[in-house]
């Protein structure tokens, strides 16, 4: 489970999740599971003008299947580690 391990390394980091319906949510990653379901705290909707219904939400559970992208900071990602894990083909 390469990407599950990857998401576990991102716990307590700030990430931005872009959903398939266009909603972009920034928050602190609290947990991730094998389906890439994510739980975020201190959430803020990046495009609140378009999606005002999320303005009062503080903590959120996201079903993995609704995710399009997860945007990350360079400092939070060890690209060499990722490449080595992909080459070894863990669980492909």
């Amino acid at each position, binding site marked *: 489970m*390469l*990407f599950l391990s*990857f998401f576990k390394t991102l716990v307590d980091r700030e990430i931005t999740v872009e959903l*398939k319906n266009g909603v972009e949510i920034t928050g602190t990653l609290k947990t991730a599971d094998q389906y*890439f379901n994510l739980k975020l705290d201190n959430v803020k909707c990046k495009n609140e003008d378009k999606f005002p219904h999320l303005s009062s939400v503080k903590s959120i559970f996201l079903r*993995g*299947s609704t*995710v*399009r*992208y*997860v*945007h*990350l*900071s*360079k400092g*939070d*990602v060890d*690209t060499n580690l*990722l*490449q080595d*894990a*992909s*080459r070894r*083909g863990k*669980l*492909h």
Partner: protein
Amino acid sequence: MSDSKSEPLDLFKVLLDEKVHVKLRGAREITGRLHAYDSHCNIVLSDAVETIYDTDANDQLISTQKKSEVIFVRGDSVILVSSPNDV
């Protein structure tokens, strides 16, 4: 041809740490450096540029670009992955 038991996903292995071009559902494309992949085509790219294609009120094609330091793309959105040199 040289490898008797080659698989489609072997292409990803060749493209690791190389610039790749990814076509996605919803008239989107991303170029970036490939760092990770799995059998679902979940991928991680760095220095990614996303291009979104749309049409304006006069049916003219318009494209908008968004940049991201590092991006994880969920595999179910991926249509194709290629080397940008092939385009």
